[in-house]
């Protein structure tokens, strides 16, 4: 809890109330100046000298949801009775230490240009085996799969078109069939009586034209979160092409990269100049470290503006192998939060295509209950083959 000292020199109630609202805001409640004014107005309605009454009234007015409901009493005491605890100001701003592993992802994105700058920030020669649960099997496959491809190939016409086609087909396959509203249509089960009547007025009340209405299938909005950590390097190219396809196919789609940080890449992917897009992506990729903090990245997503735009007609697609340095609980909490807003969550896992792979990684086990589908995907062809699965969702 962030603590705010009761301002000893505050002048009058308005000042103190402003401080209180700021104190709540500091602790994660979204409150504006209007709420401060409302809070002062509320105190006029009750016996403001009774602390319990004031506490209840402010709680009812200011708390926006169930999460704040539980913490409000402590926050109230902390501010008005100076019962707060000041958090140790340590290990907060710079918790993310640079990993000792080379920036594989970055080297992969732009081998010519990226490598020299990138090399300065990382400590080369770090062990391959540490971090995010990379086991021997994965490394073995990486060397097998690692072909000489770079970001220019990501923007190569053929694969871009293939990825776009796959993405478009998938986007089309996911339709919202639950709509119960009806829309006017040429053919449909029901008469649109409102229009029938309107049309009949021109003919003296004879209903000659019979407009109809039907339940439309509506496209779902896709939001893709693509893992580009070290363990995903091999697949990042395919996935990025796919994500680019998704974003290009649908103007409402949204895309993010994550690693230890989360980054919105939709504007970069929408750039029509493919070379400039590649440059922008490379710039964004810079500064990426080694480990994957899926839980942290998803938490930031769930807290940010991106999640605000989610609704029941959104599908969140997570492209990741599920190897995570964060705690599984954090991942589960973040997914639960996204779950409450989004219609579906689909996890595309490149490892799932492997024979004998079982999602035993702690993060994956924690995530499974929140997923509508956990599907294999490692090439564009494999992604295209998912269409029937998507149609079933």
């Amino acid at each position: 809890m962030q603590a705010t000292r009761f301002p000893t020199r505050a002048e009058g109630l308005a000042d103190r109330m402003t401080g209180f609202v700021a104190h709540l805001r500091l602790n994660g409640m979204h409150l504006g100046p209007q709420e401060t004014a409302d809070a002062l107005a509320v105190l006029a309605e009750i016996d403001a000298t009774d602390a319990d009454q004031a506490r209840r009234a402010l709680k009812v007015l200011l708390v926006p949801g169930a999460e704040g409901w539980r913490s409000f009493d402590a926050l109230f005491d902390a501010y008005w009775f100076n019962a707060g605890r000041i958090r140790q100001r340590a290990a907060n701003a710079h918790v993310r230490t640079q990993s000792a592993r080379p920036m594989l992802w970055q080297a992969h994105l732009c081998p010519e240009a990226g490598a020299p700058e990138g090399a300065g920030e990382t400590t080369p020669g770090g062990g391959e085996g540490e971090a995010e649960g990379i086991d021997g099997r994965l490394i073995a496959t990486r060397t097998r799969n690692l072909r000489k491809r770079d970001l220019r190939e990501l923007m190569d016409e053929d694969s871009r078109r293939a990825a776009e086609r796959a993405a478009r087909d998938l986007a089309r396959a996911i339709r919202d069939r639950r709509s119960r509203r009806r829309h006017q249509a040429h053919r449909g089960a029901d008469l649109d009586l409102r229009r029938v009547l309107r049309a009949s007025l021109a003919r003296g009340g004879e209903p000659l034209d019979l407009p109809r209405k039907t339940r439309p299938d509506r496209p779902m909005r896709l939001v893709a979160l693509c893992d580009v950590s070290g363990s995903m390097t091999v697949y990042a190219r395919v996935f990025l092409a796919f994500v680019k396809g998704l974003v290009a196919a649908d103007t409402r789609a949204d895309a993010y990269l994550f690693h230890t940080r989360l980054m919105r890449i939709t504007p970069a992917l929408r750039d029509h100049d493919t070379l400039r897009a590649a440059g922008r992506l490379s710039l964004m990729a810079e500064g990426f470290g080694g480990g994957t903090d899926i839980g942290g990245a998803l938490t930031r997503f769930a807290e940010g503006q991106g999640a605000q735009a989610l609704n029941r007609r959104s599908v969140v697609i997570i492209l990741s192998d599920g190897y995570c340095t964060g705690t599984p609980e954090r991942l589960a909490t973040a997914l639960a939060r996204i779950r409450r807003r989004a219609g579906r969550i689909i996890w595309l896992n490149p490892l799932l295509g492997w024979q004998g792979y079982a999602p035993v990684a702690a993060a994956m086990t924690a995530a499974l209950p929140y997923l509508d589908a956990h599907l294999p995907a490692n090439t564009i062809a494999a992604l295209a083959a998912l269409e029937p699965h998507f149609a079933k969702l």
Partner: protein
Amino acid sequence: MTTTPQADLKRALAAAGYVADDTLVMALHLALTLGRPLLLEGPAGVGKTEIAKALSEVRQARLIRLQCYEGLDAAHAIYEWNYQRQLLAIRADGAGEDSLFSDRFLLRRPLLEAICQAEPPVLLIDEIDRADEEFEAYLLEILSDFQITIPEIGTITATSRPLVILTANGTRDLSDALRRRCLYAYIDYPDRDTELAILARRGPRIEARLARQIVGVVQALRREELEKKPGIAEMLDWAAALAGLGINDLTEDRAALRATLVCLLKTAADRDAAPPELLDRIIGKVA
């Protein structure tokens, strides 16, 4: 000593059969004095809907209820023209446009109904999280201006401001815009004493010892990992079932007790999660 308006409201609610805690009473009091909508959240079966009923009884106001569901649209929530009657009217007496779009052919749905009352009613918008986002946005407009525009007639302004109560189960997050317009109260399962008071007021006539046992078992079950925790309604059902079977002491007749558990545990998984040993342990504790 208790002469505050909140205390009066609390007593009135209790007289109407609703046992409310102080925070909830404050929420209702502020909703009444400030004229703002009140959003109630909480698990299923804690009496969110009952509040609106009790409040309408206290205020002697009409209760208008709008049950939300997925795909709820303006035609079902606000107004609709009675097309069949309109067509008939055209054919039968050649009604002109003025008379066609008159009050006679207007079907008032709950929201329009609520703002057209002479006396302010209680408007209950139940399970708002089941309706889709479009409807939520539409509701915002009505809740802030209390007016509805019908193209054929014009704008209808509220004759009285209804007291709006919204309930949500948390099946999805509500938009911040809606939350900011509402006062908020989270209703949790009641504590032991409150639940005993509710049972005494709403339940069948039973002995105090049995009441304590019933509440004890239900409270203990809520602490278990259940899919669907028993709410107040389930507790009252169970009490009625036990009273109907003539059971006076839970420790006496274990078989009948297990048979009546269908009132409390409503999924197969939950029935498995509460094996006889667990029940014996719980009853041993509360007896």
